[in-house]
C-alpha cells in the first residue's frame, strides 16, 4: 500500500495511458465493454484527484521524481492546490464527456473511449509537470488527441474547422519551442522551479531575451486560452465538434489559463527581480478586450453552439482579467470562477447538441423560429437551468463565482473599468441567452415527432449540474481553498524549494 501511496502523483498520467492503450485493442471488438472500462478508469482518475487533494489541502507541495532523477536533472512532477483543482475539474468533465458519449457508442465510433483517455493523459500531465519541455510534450499529447476527437465523425464543416485548428496550434507549438530554447540558452535549465530561482540572476544582457521568452510563452498560452487577437479559431472550432467532445473541449481553454497562471506567478512572479510581473497589465487589458469581443460574439451568434463558444471566449477573458489584477485574492477568485465556467459551458454545449438533434438536420440549433424540439419541457428546463448558471443570475454557481471576482478586484486600482466590463458582459449574456431561449422554445410551434433525450446525456448533465450546485452549497469552504491556492501561487518559494529539494524514493 505504501508503494501505491508513493506512486500516487503519477497515477493520473499512468492510468489513462495504460487504459487508453488497452482500449485501442478492445474498442473495436467490444465497444460497449470498452466504454464501461473507460468509465471505470475515469472514476479511478477522479479518485486519484481526491486522494491528492487530501494530501495537498494543507498547503503541502508534493514532488514526484520521474525515474528517480532529482531536480534539475530529471523531470519532476509537482502537485500543489492549483494542480489538484485542475485535476479535479478535468476529471469531472471527462466523466461527463464519456457519459454523454454512451448514448451512441457506435455513433461516436469505436476509438472514442481510447482517444478520451489519451486526451485526459495529456491534460493531467500538463497540470502536474514542473518541467517546461515536458509541458510542451503534454500539450502535444493533448492536442493530437483533440485533433482526432474533433475529426472523429467529421462532417464537411468539422473538416474545415479542424484544418484551421490544427494549423493554428502547430504554429503555437513552434513558438513554444522557440520560447523554451531561448530560456534554456539564457538560463541553462528547463525545470520551472530552477528557472524561477535563476531568472533574478540573469545578466543585464540576457534579461531582454528572458523577457522575450516570457512574452512568447504568453502568446502560446494565449492561443490555447483563446485570448483576444489569438482566439478567433475557437468560435469556428467548438461548434463543429460532436456534443460530447465539445463538453471536453470546455476544459481545453483552461489549460492555457492554467499555464499562464503557473508561469506568470512562478517564473515571472514576485521573486523574478527586474522581470517581476512584467506581463500583469497586459493580462488585465487583454482579458478585458477578450470579454468585450466574446460578449459581442454572443450577441451576434446565430446558433446555440456558437453562442456557447463565444461565452467560453468571454469567460477566458474574465479569468485573464482576474489573474491580471495581480493580487492573491483576485487569483483565488479566478480559481473559483474556473470550475464554474467549465461545468456551465460544458452543460450548455451538451444541451445545445441535444437541441440540435431534437430539431432535426434542417434547423439544428439555429436561433430561428421553427420546430421547437420535442420534449420541449425537459429540454427547455435544462436550457433555463444552465443559462441561469452561466449568466451569473442567483442562486446558481455563476452568481457566486462572479460575485467573488467582483469582490476580489474591488481593491485593485483598475476596478471601475473591470467592474463595468464584467457587469455589462453579464447583462449582454442574459440578453443573448434569453433571446435564444425564447426563440427556440417559446416562439416555435412544437415539433410533431418526439426525439427522446439520451440517458447518457441526461446523466452527464446531472453530473455537471451537481458539480455546479456543489460550488454553491460549499461556496464558503471552496472560497477558502481557492484563496489559499491564490496565496500559494503568490508565494512560490515553497513550491521552488519542494521541487529542488525533492529526494529520490527508496524502497521500504
Amino acid at each position, binding site marked *: 500500500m505504501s508503494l501505491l501511496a508513493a506512486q500516487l502523483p503519477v497515477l493520473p498520467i499512468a492510468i489513462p495511458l495504460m487504459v487508453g492503450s488497452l482500449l485501442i485493442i478492445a474498442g473495436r471488438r467490444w465497444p460497449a465493454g470498452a466504454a464501461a472500462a473507460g468509465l471505470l478508469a475515469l472514476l479511478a482518475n477522479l479518485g486519484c484527484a481526491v486522494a491528492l487533494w487530501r494530501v495537498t489541502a494543507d498547503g503541502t507541495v508534493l514532488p514526484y521524481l520521474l525515474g528517480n532523477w532529482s531536480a534539475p536533472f530529471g523531470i519532476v512532477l509537482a502537485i500543489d492546490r492549483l494542480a489538484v483543482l485542475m485535476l479535479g475539474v478535468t476529471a469531472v468533465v471527462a466523466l461527463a464527456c464519456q457519459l454523454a458519449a454512451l448514448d451512441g457508442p457506435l455513433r461516436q465510433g469505436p476509438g472514442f473511449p481510447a482517444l478520451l483517455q489519451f486526451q485526459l493523459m495529456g491534460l493531467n500531465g500538463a497540470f502536474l509537470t514542473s518541467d517546461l519541455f515536458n509541458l510542451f510534450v503534454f500539450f502535444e499529447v493533448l492536442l493530437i488527441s483533440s485533433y482526432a476527437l474533433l475529426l472523429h465523425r467529421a462532417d464537411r464543416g468539422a473538416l474545415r474547422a479542424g484544418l484551421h485548428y490544427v494549423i493554428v496550434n502547430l504554429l503555437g507549438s513552434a513558438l513554444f519551442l522557440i520560447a523554451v530554447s531561448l530560456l*534554456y540558452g539564457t538560463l541553462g535549465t528547463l525545470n520551472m522551479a530552477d528557472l524561477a530561482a535563476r531568472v533574478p540572476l540573469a545578466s543585464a544582457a540576457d534579461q531582454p531575451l528572458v523577457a522575450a521568452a516570457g512574452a512568447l510563452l504568453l502568446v502560446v498560452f494565449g492561443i490555447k486560452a483563446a485570448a483576444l487577437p489569438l482566439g478567433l479559431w475557437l468560435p469556428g472550432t467548438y461548434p463543429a465538434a460532436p456534443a460530447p467532445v465539445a463538453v471536453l473541449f470546455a476544459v481545453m481553454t483552461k489549460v492555457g489559463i492554467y499555464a499562464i497562471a503557473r508561469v506568470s506567478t512562478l517564473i515571472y512572479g514576485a521573486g523574478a527581480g527586474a522581470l517581476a510581473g512584467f506581463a500583469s497589465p497586459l493580462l488585465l487589458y487583454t482579458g478585458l478586450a477578450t470579454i468585450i469581443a466574446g460578449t459581442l460574439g454572443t450577441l451576434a451568434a446565430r446558433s446555440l453552439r456558437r453562442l456557447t463558444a463565444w461565452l467560453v471566449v468571454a469567460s477566458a477573458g474574465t479569468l485573464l482579467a482576474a489573474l491580471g489584477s495581480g493580487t492573491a485574492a483576485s487569483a483565488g477568485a479566478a480559481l473559483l470562477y474556473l470550475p464554474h465556467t467549465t461545468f456551465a459551458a460544458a452543460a450548455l454545449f451538451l444541451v445545445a447538441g441535444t437541441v440540435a438533434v431534437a430539431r432535426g438536420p434542417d434547423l439544428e440549433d439555429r436561433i430561428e423560429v421553427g420546430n421547437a424540439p420535442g420534449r420541449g419541457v425537459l429540454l427547455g428546463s435544462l436550457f433555463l437551468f444552465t443559462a441561469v448558471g452561466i449568466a451569473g443570475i442567483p442562486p446558481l454557481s455563476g452568481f457566486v463565482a462572479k460575485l467573488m471576482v467582483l469582490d476580489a478586484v474591488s481593491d485593485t486600482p483598475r476596478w471601475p473599468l473591470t467592474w463595468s466590463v464584467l457587469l455589462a458582459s453579464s447583462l449582454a449574456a442574459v440578453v443573448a441567452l434569453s433571446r435564444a431561449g425564447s426563440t427556440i422554445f417559446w416562439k416555435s410551434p412544437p415539433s410533431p415527432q418526439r426525439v427522446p433525450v439520451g440517458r447518457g446525456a441526461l446523466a452527464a448533465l446531472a453530473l455537471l449540474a451537481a458539480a455546479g450546485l456543489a460550488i454553491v452549497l460549499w461556496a464558503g469552504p471552496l472560497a477558502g481553498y481557492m484563496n489559499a491556492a491564490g496565496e500559494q501561487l503568490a508565494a512560490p518559494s515553497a513550491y521552488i524549494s519542494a521541487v529542488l529539494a525533492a529526494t529520490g524514493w527508496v524502497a521500504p
Partner: protein
Amino acid sequence: MELLVSSAIGLLTAGGVFLLLRARSFEVVLGLTLLSYAVNLFIFVMGRLAIDKVPLLREGVAPSLANHADPLPQALVLTAIVISFAMTAVLLVLALRSHAEYGSDHVDGAEPPAPEPRRRNP
C-alpha cells in the same frame, strides 16, 4: 559561422511565415515544415555552436562545457523533430481529405469569389 547559422534560421523562418500566410493548404503545410526546420535548428544552436566536441564524457577530460558539447539540446531537438514530423503527417492527411471533400485546396474549403475585373475609367 554564427552569421551563417543565424541567417539560415532567419531565412527559413521568413520563408515559413510567408508560405504560412498563403491561402492554399499545401503551401501552408510547406510553410509549417520550413518553420519547424528553423525551430529545430534554433533549439540545437541554443546549446551553443561547438566544433569537434562530443556530448559524451571521456576519461581524462574534465567534465565541463569547455570540453564537451551540451547534450540536452540534442535530446530536445530529437523530441521536437519526432513531434513535428507526426503533426505534419496529421496535417497532410487532413489537407488531402479536405481537398477530396471540397474539391479545392483553399484553406477555407471553397474558392473565394473571383474579384471583378477593374473597369477602365471612361
